[in-house]
């Protein structure tokens, strides 16, 4: 069980610092945000810190079919294609060519395995789902001759696609028959702004998918853009979960690839291991002033000052690098807390964490803290609901 860093725009020194501190065990590279030469330098940097850090490359082929698309540096990659439609995936040869180009490119860079191309899946029964499976199949054929395994099937699943258990089950029946070593899966959120809330049915099916692939079928499951859900996904059987240094790298939304529509700067956040949430600095400030900051603080190397002063007075010192390192540290500790436990015990421990977080929310609210709706405890109830369904389905 490992925490991975979701690489993206605005790297600065955050990647170096995270590696230096040993906060992540892997990095998932985003070609959209660095051109091929820079990306190779980034890989060299990562290798310079530790050969043990796993590097995966998300080819981001789901951008092929988006129009209009904000594809950044992707156009500089030899495999990239813009403005494809369904017709471009008709026929075995067409699919094989796309897969070959994506796999062949990955053979030229120093990464740990190959990630297959995929398309955005909004319905697990429609033609795009079939195309995604064909891309995986074609990648299996290609990878054999080009680059040694492991091969990871990549999936970009919308919340809608994950809403129906029967669809997920039928999809898994096919996917588990394929000769892949693992899966790189991303849940594309409907909301373009960061939120801990999630439809319990979607999360339940996501946990079920991770469990089926990771535990029953012994695949390496890497969950991209998992963020605080990492604890649940790890408990269900994920090998790794990734998060990034800003909200756009913590949760995935296709809006990331759409032309920008403006909008305000994200408000600074603080990740609380005790609340299992990323709350606003303003919420943390209230907790201090109401005398309940200890119900909220995570106690990492980065948040000591918040014990002594209201958070908003420290806003200037809570820069993106510091908050990122804190975030990684919190998630890493939470994951470590369930490491080595049996699946059943890991799930029970996660439920205990959620119950404890609900209790701390209650204490803070009783003291008068009014959390922003984007940082309240609703997600915890949704998580519990999802876990209950997951347990019923798996007998864990």
């Amino acid at each position, binding site marked *: 069980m490992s925490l991975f860093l979701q690489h993206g725009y605005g790297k600065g020194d955050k990647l170096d610092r995270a590696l230096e501190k040993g906060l992540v065990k892997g990095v998932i590279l985003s070609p959209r945000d660095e051109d091929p030469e820079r990306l190779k330098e980034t890989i060299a940097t990562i290798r310079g810190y530790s050969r043990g850090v796993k590097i995966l490359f998300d080819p981001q082929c789901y951008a092929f079919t988006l129009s209009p698309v904000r594809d950044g540096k992707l156009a500089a990659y030899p495999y990239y294609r813009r403005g494809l439609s369904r017709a471009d995936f008709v026929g075995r040869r067409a699919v094989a060519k796309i897969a070959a180009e994506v796999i062949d490119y990955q053979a030229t860079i120093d990464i740990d395995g190959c990630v297959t191309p995929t398309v955005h899946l909004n319905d697990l029964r429609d033609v795009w789902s079939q195309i995604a499976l064909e891309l995986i199949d074609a990648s299996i054929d290609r990878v054999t001759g080009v680059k040694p395994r492991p091969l990871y099937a990549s999936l970009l699943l919308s919340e809608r696609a994950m809403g129906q258990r029967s669809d997920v089950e039928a999809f898994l029946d096919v996917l588990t*028959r394929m000769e892949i070593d693992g899966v790189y899966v991303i849940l594309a959120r409907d909301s373009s702004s960061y939120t801990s809330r999630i439809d319990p049915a979607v999360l339940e099916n996501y946990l079920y998918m991770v469990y089926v692939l990771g535990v*029953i079928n012994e695949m390496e499951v890497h969950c991209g853009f998992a963020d605080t859900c990492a604890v649940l996904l790890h408990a269900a059987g994920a090998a790794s979960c990734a998060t990034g240094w800003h909200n756009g790298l913590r949760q995935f939304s296709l809006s990331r690839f759409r032309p920008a529509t403006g909008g305000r700067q994200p408000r600074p956040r603080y990740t609380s291991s005790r609340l299992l949430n990323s709350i606003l600095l303003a919420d943390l400030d209230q907790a201090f002033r109401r005398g309940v900051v200890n119900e909220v603080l995570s106690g990492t190397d980065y948040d000591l000052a918040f014990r002594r002063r209201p958070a908003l007075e420290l806003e200037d010192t809570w820069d993106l690098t510091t908050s990122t390192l804190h975030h990684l540290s919190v998630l890493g500790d939470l994951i470590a807390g369930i490491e080595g436990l049996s699946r059943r015990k890991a799930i029970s421990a996660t439920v205990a964490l959620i119950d404890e977080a609900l209790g701390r929310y209650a204490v803070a609210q009783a003291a008068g803290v009014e959390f922003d709706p984007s940082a309240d405890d609703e997600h915890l109830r949704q998580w519990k609901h999802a876990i209950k369904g997951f347990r019923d389905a798996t007998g864990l």
Partner: protein
Amino acid sequence: MHFDDLTPALLEEALPELRPIRFIGAGGQKRVYACNYQGQVYALKVHFIGKKAADESSPAATITDPGVDTAIARAKRAVEILRRCSGGSLARVGPVDVTVFEVQDVQLMYYLEEFIDGVDLKTDLAKNGPWTPAEIRRVGLALIEAIKELWECGAVHRDIKPANIIRRTADGSFVLIDIDLALDLHGDSLTVPGGIAGTKQYLSPEQLEVESKRSLDFRSDLFNVGVVMYELATGENPFWEPGTSLATGMSRIREFNPPSPKDRDPKFPSDLSDFIMRLLAKKPHLRFRSCDSARKALEKVDIEVVSE
């Protein structure tokens, strides 16, 4: 002539190179005999294709059903595939290819298979009752090996049941027979309506889904093995009991979660019980990803019977 009246004498007349021939058993549209071919004993499997019309001069005198040609072609292909299988857990295909012949007004086809001297598990179970955990594990491992071999040859057995598993008299090893699944499509072992190949008491949930027939894989066979192991453990089929209607039985295969062997007998080893129940999972993705994974899991199970 009726197919059931196909005596060894009639066969010896039609197939003199296989003399002497003796009857062993029958099931569905198939009869099995022991025969001698070039000095070696083989199992002779004879399948009913169809009856000629009474009037030889009429166009209907020859069988024109295109399904017959397809069935024969598929049988030949299946036998050819299985000829490549080399492990010891499967009955080997014999030296004679699928051959069509006639006896009186009946059109038949036959092929030869390795003759196995032993007792089938159905007979054994009826005579001796449930098996020990150690023996259940042993037969489970042999069947998984057989399924693996078949799958590597591109085939799914689809009709794994106690009557199709033989324990060799010579060394106690287990052999899976009746690998002619393509022939089953023409009626052999077809005991449920709707063109489903297999025997109703051992069908997997996906075998009941007509639209998924083409996508059946080894995991369907693993389910069949789960039913067999369950029967060996408890003496009873998990989904069917005497008097169960077809509709109820099929519904149970799809929906009903039977009590585990451990639930039924607290002394039964938990690990082995869990393994059997995993094979009986309703969805293929909840069984095992590969035969190797299943084998490794079964090798690891603790078979110590819980002492009181």
